[in-house]
């Protein structure tokens, strides 16, 4: 069977999702048997061109160049996958959308003399191009990447079951952080991560995005006993998921 010609491309980000793939180690060499990782910039100096069967896109479109890379990628590939929270939701960069001081002032706080640098409102890649699938999280779960790759070979796009983080957290018999009064977003967040954060006694900050049938008002009520809704939603700013959480449920 011919390999799928695959590229992993980074826009502006920490590149941690690409490292998660590299962290597969020996398993990555296995994945490379069926995905032709033709453009894996981090590991290669070989320049390649499309068309591609699949492009995994990590990072946030911030510069004009980022946006044109993204649009070009869409034209060059059959399947475009959002890799990680930055591409999927906007990621940490989206905190600036919610800041009261405003993007311009935030820029001049860091760079006093800069000129002509892009500083747009942060949007996920789906605001610019059609996206066919996603591997969410900050960072991605590397085993989910393998599962996604295996499904691709079978001609399918892996869809994460619409089950909240709480489900996996309970299976692991963790203490419920929400019951301890901590602002955990597990009930409204898409699982598949093995509830890795609560399993480490760290609240779920919703980096994988919301489930379809989320009940945010109910969560606000539970957390509201300890924390104002405003303070609670500040946590949802961290991975850029606040706007997605506040959107009304769609059918």
């Amino acid at each position, binding site marked *: 069977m011919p390999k799928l010609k695959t590229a992993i491309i980074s826009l502006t980000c920490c590149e941690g999702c690409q490292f*998660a793939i590299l*962290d597969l180690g020996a398993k990555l*060499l296995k994945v490379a048997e069926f995905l032709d990782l033709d453009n894996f910039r981090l*590991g290669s100096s070989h320049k390649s061109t499309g068309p591609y069967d699949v492009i995994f896109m990590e990072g946030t479109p911030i*510069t004009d160049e980022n946006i044109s890379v993204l649009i070009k990628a869409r034209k060059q590939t059959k399947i475009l996958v959002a890799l990680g929270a930055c591409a999927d939701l906007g990621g940490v*960069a989206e905190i*600036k959308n919610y800041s009261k001081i405003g993007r311009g002032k935030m820029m001049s706080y860091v760079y006093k003399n*800069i000129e002509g*640098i892009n500083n747009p409102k942060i949007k996920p890649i789906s605001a610019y191009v059609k996206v066919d699938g996603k591997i969410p999280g900050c960072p991605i779960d590397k085993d989910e990447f393998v599962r996604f790759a295996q499904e691709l070979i079978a001609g399918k796009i892996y869809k994460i079951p619409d089950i909240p983080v709480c489900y996996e957290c309970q299976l692991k018999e963790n203490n419920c952080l929400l019951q301890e009064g901590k602002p955990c977003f597990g009930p409204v967040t898409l699982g598949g991560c093995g509830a890795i954060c609560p399993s480490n006694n*760290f609240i779920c900050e919703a980096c994988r995005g919301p489930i379809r049938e989320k009940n945010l008002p109910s969560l606000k009520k539970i957390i509201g006993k300890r924390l104002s809704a405003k303070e609670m939603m500040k946590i949802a700013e961290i991975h850029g998921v606040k706007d997605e959480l506040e959107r009304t449920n769609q059918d």
Partner: protein
Amino acid sequence: MRIVIDHIARIEGHAGFIGKIVNGKIAEAKIETQEGARLFESLLIGRHYFDAPVITARICGVCPVIHMLTSIKAIENAFGIDPHPLTVTLRQLMLAGQTIQSHTLHLYFLVLADYFNADSGIEFAQKYPEDAKEFLALRDFGNRIVEIIGGRTIHPLTPKTGGFTKLPDTKKLAKLSAEIPQNMAAAKKLLNIISNVPLPEFSRSTNYVAMRDNIGYLPYEGLICSTQNHSMSAEKFIKTIRETETIHTPSKRAKIHSKGYLVGALSRINLNSKKLNQEAAIELKKLNVTIPCFNSFYNNIAQAIEIIHLIEEAKVLLDEYLSEINDLGINEINNQFKPKTSYGVGALEAPRGTLFHAYKFNREGLIVSTNIITPTVQSIANLEEDLKVWLKTRERGSQINIEEEKKAVMKLIRAYDPCITCATH
């Protein structure tokens, strides 16, 4: 003549290079970053202190541990928290794991391909599968130290101000300790490969800067020392350096008295080599390298020596933790504290050099101002100065071949192991 490299592959982040040679003289040698403005320093303003380690870890996917821990250290210094010795032991283990994985990745996947005419780390791994297996395992060893203590390799979860959210499984730590010998063998093999590739001849003395204390090679506390200036506290050091901006790219260059300086493995070897652990010291001696070493390409040798040092260090730290933890629980280890109006600076040695986080807090522990100075921001001016000298002095035939020049430029840039995502935080 212009040497333009659009994308420098096999470095962390996006950058290009522009060099100009006019009448045989180097008129320009500039690294151009291509990341968008990320504004991490302003993302933190107005947020709670406990968000800082979580958010700043996301500056870099290859060295999130060091950002997280330096951030925590800055907060602890501000609030006057003196962490439990075992908290420090676990943090030092995480730092060791972080640097073992980062150096191994850099040397094996990003650098060696340069010397073996392979295009990629993956291609290189497929050419020499047995070596690849061993070095992947070595990198994985570093990663697992981080994972067992931090809960996850990339963007760890457990470290927090005053301690940890959860203590590691001691059985898993004991297992790591048992894996030291095979990883030591792999680390020595990696050094052997690196020290046998023909590293270019090059010499330019500069100001080498690293943290230093009276105890170890990679101190948790210590003063910032340099080969040309007096040693000083981290607070004073970040006031001494000046960050200059380029007008059109969102990256900065830090200088001391208008001059570039170098941080990272070579600086640490030049300043602290006497404090290397036994086996690392023996291996360094065998190589007959004169210390201080002025050849920037030897940063790669220094990294390989550091991996050996850190594997010895990991053994000591693991044994220390396992023998002292006994019945101590998280409540005995974690500090209790209250936020207060304060200012704190944290500094630690990251894989690529000294990293600084500085925060000011109000009474509720909300962040009022921030300053983050990454290793690459500090070394990049020095790299550009090196590139000028390297382009001028390197041996070449009578004809200048642009492709050869590009390769030479990239070789030096890669030897530095720059992290462009950190540079444009």
